[in-house]
């Protein structure tokens, strides 16, 4: 029966993205263009941050009049029978594909931006899903695929993403309805008309492949010749390392020099010297210097450990002031007051003291308690006001005494132990040495976060002997590292360590 059929449109959106508004616009658009429109949704609790499908059917009114009766329209999409799918976010495009809404007759309009799901955000490491597979499958499956960052377009226009998506629908030409009717629909709705029309235009152009792809970061990233004379000797030493490691090592050097000066940079290179020699001996060239690169990366992060001095330094920089204005979308010249949430504890204070003194304080429960009374509460420090700025600026200037501090000694010892573990593992198992280097990834943050990471690190290190006896020690170590990042109370890591040691006993 080649009878008239409805045009079927599914909108896969997230709560708060204006999916309902978009559905209403499409209904009005259809009615203005001579269609009978029906729309449904199942908002319910999904309105509160969940994913929702809005479903619309447009049926030519003329055909209904010719027949003398109204069509029977459906209230939900059937897989393989949807003409237009509008996905307001990349994973929602994936969800539409997974539900079978997208077929070779479908025009899929998707926004390429990501709104991360809670499961992706709460990971202790990087829990983000890969959007690449979705794009690949979309290209293969959809009759037509329009992909652009509609969120950016909407933000540029100061509107909600629904307006940009409405524009993309017009631009895609998937509906036999002229652009003027789309624009009229927005005007008639009468809310934020100018912003919505701007976003509509941008969305429309994006769908027609005329997106003004903002040229991001076109500046040449390597202008080595601008390096200051003080760091030239370091760069000369760096040049003697294998070229594939230059990029990472340069970034590492930058970080440690910024952290504690040129001499500290020299120490960084010195620490890497042994690793480089060993890497070379055990086939580093063949392996693209994986060990040297890994060690260079994680050593720099370790040497630039976070302490009060570092935080105070980063918080008071001019570049940071420029950045926070951007982040909070302050207008040109607008006054912005910023206050920091600091929570220094006795531990952090002792980190700064000379080693002997710190040990004395930490040992004495009285001194520690007295200190805690002073420090142990959260404070808000306003960096944009003079008192707060000078407080932090003063703390940052304590950098000169960092190398004598308790924490510095502690970290130096830990780094040495770690490096010797790496060094002693290379000969036996190159991949294992790389994984040992990567263990530094567990040591992040401050306060409790840092303590938790350090505890995981220590537990793994003390199980290294058991790891070595595994058939694939590198994989086993990697598994432990991942387990440590799985939950906060260390349950997954404990289970894995148990399995490891009991396997050893068996």
């Amino acid at each position, binding site marked *: 029966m080649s009878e008239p059929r409805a045009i079927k449109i599914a909108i896969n959106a997230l709560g708060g993205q204006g999916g309902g508004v978009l559905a209403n616009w499409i209904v009005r658009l259809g009615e203005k263009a001579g269609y009978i429109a029906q729309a449904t949704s199942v*908002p319910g609790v999904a309105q509160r941050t969940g994913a929702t499908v809005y479903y619309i059917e447009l049926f030519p009114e003329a055909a209904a009049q010719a027949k003398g009766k109204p069509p029977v329209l459906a209230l939900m999409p059937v897989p*393989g029978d949807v003409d237009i799918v509008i996905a307001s976010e990349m*994973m929602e495009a994936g969800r539409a*594909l997974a539900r079978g809404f997208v077929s070779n*007759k479908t025009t899929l309009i998707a926004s390429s931006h990501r709104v991360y799901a809670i499961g992706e955000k709460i990971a202790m490491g990087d829990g983000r899903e890969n959007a690449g597979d979705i794009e690949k499958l979309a290209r293969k499956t959809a009759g037509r695929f329009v992909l652009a960052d509609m969120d950016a377009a909407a933000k540029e226009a100061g509107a909600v993403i629904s307006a940009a998506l409405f524009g993309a629908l017009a631009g895609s030409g998937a509906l036999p309805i002229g652009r003027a009717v789309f624009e009229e629909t927005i005007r008639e709705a009468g809310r934020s008309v100018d912003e919505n029309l701007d976003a509509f235009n941008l969305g429309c152009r994006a769908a027609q492949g005329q997106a003004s792809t903002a040229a991001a970061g076109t500046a040449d990233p390597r202008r080595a010749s601008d390096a200051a004379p003080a760091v030239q000797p370091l760069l000369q030493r760096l040049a003697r390392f294998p070229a594939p490691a230059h990029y990472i090592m340069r970034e590492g050097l930058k970080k440690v020099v910024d952290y504690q000066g040129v001499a500290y940079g020299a120490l960084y290179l010195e620490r890497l010297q042994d690793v480089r020699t060993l890497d070379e001996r055990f086939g580093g060239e063949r392996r693209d210097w994986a060990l040297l690169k890994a060690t260079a990366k994680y050593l720099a992060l370790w040497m630039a450990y976070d302490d009060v001095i570092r935080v105070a330094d980063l918080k008071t920089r*001019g570049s940071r002031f420029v950045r926070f204005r951007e982040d909070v979308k302050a207008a040109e010249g607008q006054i912005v007051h910023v206050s920091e949430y600091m929570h220094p504890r006795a531990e952090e204070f002792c980190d700064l003291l000379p080693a002997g003194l710190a040990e004395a304080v930490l040992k004495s429960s009285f001194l520690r308690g007295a200190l805690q009374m002073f420090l142990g*509460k959260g404070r808000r420090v306003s960096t944009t006001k003079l008192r707060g700025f000078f407080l932090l600026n003063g703390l940052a200037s304590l950098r000169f005494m960092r190398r004598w501090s308790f924490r510095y000694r502690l970290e130096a010892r830990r780094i040495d132990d770690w490096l010797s573990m790496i060094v002693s593992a290379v000969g036996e198992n190159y991949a294992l040495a790389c994984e040992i280097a990567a263990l530094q990834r567990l040591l992040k943050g401050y306060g409790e976060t840092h303590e938790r990471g350090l505890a995981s690190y220590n537990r793994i290190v003390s199980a290294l002997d058991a790891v070595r006896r595994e058939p694939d020690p590198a994989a086993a170590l990697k598994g432990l590292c991942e387990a440590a990042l799985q939950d906060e109370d260390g349950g997954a890591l404990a289970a894995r360590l148990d399995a490891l040691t009991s396997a050893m006993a068996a």
Partner: protein
Amino acid sequence: MAERSFAKEVEDLRIGDGEVFRGEGILAVTKALLQSGVSYVGGYQGAPISHLMDVLSDAQEILGGLNVHFEASASEAAAAAMLAASVNYPLRGAVTWKSTVGTNVASDALANVASSGVKGGALVIVGEDYGEGSSIMQERSHAFAMKSQMWLLDPRPNLTSIVDMVERGFELSEASNTPVMLELRIRACHVYGSFVAKDNVAPSFTLRDAMENPTRDYSRVVLPPSNYVHEIEKVENRWPAAVEFIKRAKLNEFLGGHKGKVGIIVQGGLYNTLMRALELAGLADAFGETAIPIYCLNVTYPLIEDEVKGFCLDKKAVLMIEEGQPEYLEQAVNSILRNADIQTKIAGKAMLPRAGEYTGEVLLKGLTRFFEEHAPRVLSIAQPPERSEPDIEEQRALAAQVPQRPAGFCTGCPERPVFSAMKLVQKEIGAFHVSCDIGCHLFSILPPFDIGNTTMGYGLGWSGASAFNSESSQRTISIMGDGGFWHNGLASGVGNAVFNKTDNVLVIIDNGYSAATGGQDILSSRALNKTKSTNNPIAKAVRGVGVDWVREVHTYHIAEMKRVLKEAMTTAAKGPKIIIAQAECMLNRQRRERPLRAQAIRNGERVARTRFGVDPDTCTGDHSCIRLSGCPSLTIRDNPDPLRDDPVAYVDNDCVGCGVCGENAHAAILCPSFYRAELIYNPSFWDRFRAGVRNAVIGFFQRRAEKRRLKYTFGESA
């Protein structure tokens, strides 16, 4: 005030005869009630029927003009009991709620009104929250209709049919002296469509008439011996009267062809989905024309025996399309045919899934199976439209990759910090049993909080922990929202706990609204409401029933919340302990404040707006902050540091500056990456002067430091 304003929709309720009404299904029902000369309407809000309540709440003026009394009932039980007005008087009344949960609550009153029988038409409109998007247990309202003998309407999901069934429903109710239930599925409640309206009708017999001329009839009261008489009346009088009316008014429809060896019986609400499936099978056109005979049950209880027998008699097999379980209709049809010795094969759950929503895809598969088995010739001549089947394997692989998006607290929600604090207290005193309730706060059971063991019903949070009223080194915590508290919690939860001398803890989330159902006002709302009594504090109520240990805490003060929670859990004081966690629902607050602020800025007034941010260079990508919060505006982005692997936290521009991020950073001793930014609009002279001095001094020091750093630059711009 509800989350959404229905000012425009209210105007649509006024339209008259011949005009076209355009809008949502549930609003069409509202208009149909006014067209039916209803005297009173009550109900309890909840998806998918909240909009019916909200629009009537905004339509007081029209209702007053028509002499219609509208009541936002305290619970579904209160709403159902309202129908008592139709027992003695020729008053038409309608009540509404979310089902089956609301019907559960209402069933005491429903059973009584069904036993008494009604003189005026009584309509119970249930929003059947079943299938995709549902937030409740998956059950059928059908069982309630059967057990109390109320008639159940299940109209085809188009506005004309729905409106028609509302009007017919009152007539059926009056013709058979029985309350009638009208079942609307979620999508039907929200479907946008149109119908031709009629004039609104004011009731000819008013509530006032009844109050000034009271009549009573002893035989209508549910007490011996009347209760025994009622049961006999039900089967001997009311049932036959209903069957007669349904037949005469042709409420069920014989659609499709009249010939052939096979046919389909379908619940009215599933008709459109069935027609789409038939269209895709090549057996129907877009107008619902098909050669397959279809018996469409717009009334699913009672079944009309003659119609069933007549439809099945000449057929070899009939497909029974009935959503949900148990398959009451299939059993009933089989029983009718068995008693009449008709051998037609009834295929229902044998062809279709026993449980779950009947989507187009599900029905298409079921239809194909049915025809293959019972009428293969039908399929062989069908010409289905072109449709490409998606690759199942690829779909599955992708489905595993696409992250779930569980519902969660809104940006800036005041309930979030309560659970952040609870998580922190658990770290200190160990895990405890948490009994949850119904409401937005139930999102605590999902990531990132993962707090909560059970939920037993609206207002039943504390009762859900009543068994744990036992000697123990760890107390239990129960949660209740203010909505649930007034719905049922005051008596079943608090009263119960006081009477039974519990030693456990209750946290009442007092956000000023019945927030989960759309932000309706309740007794303890702080707002002034012209037609309702608000500002009745929860603390007064719980003290009134005998709770001594009561603390009121502002939810955003996490450290204080943590302290009070810990105190409640560890204090030597015996007896029930209640913490009232207070702060206004952010969704409603923003809806109220945002336009005012925008206006103030436009007027040139000095306005300070707060929001939060994260410094990427001090954030190490552990995401502890997100695990303690889960705020939608607290998200992640690429780490700008090429040496670091993990994405950094990031506060997007939706931040409303509730302060929870900062409070959490303090209470949990997180990293110092969070900052609070205050943006000043229309600064005063004094603001500008001070900012000028600060910028000059700070800028000087920053430039000096920058110069020093330039001595060590590696060349790239920082």
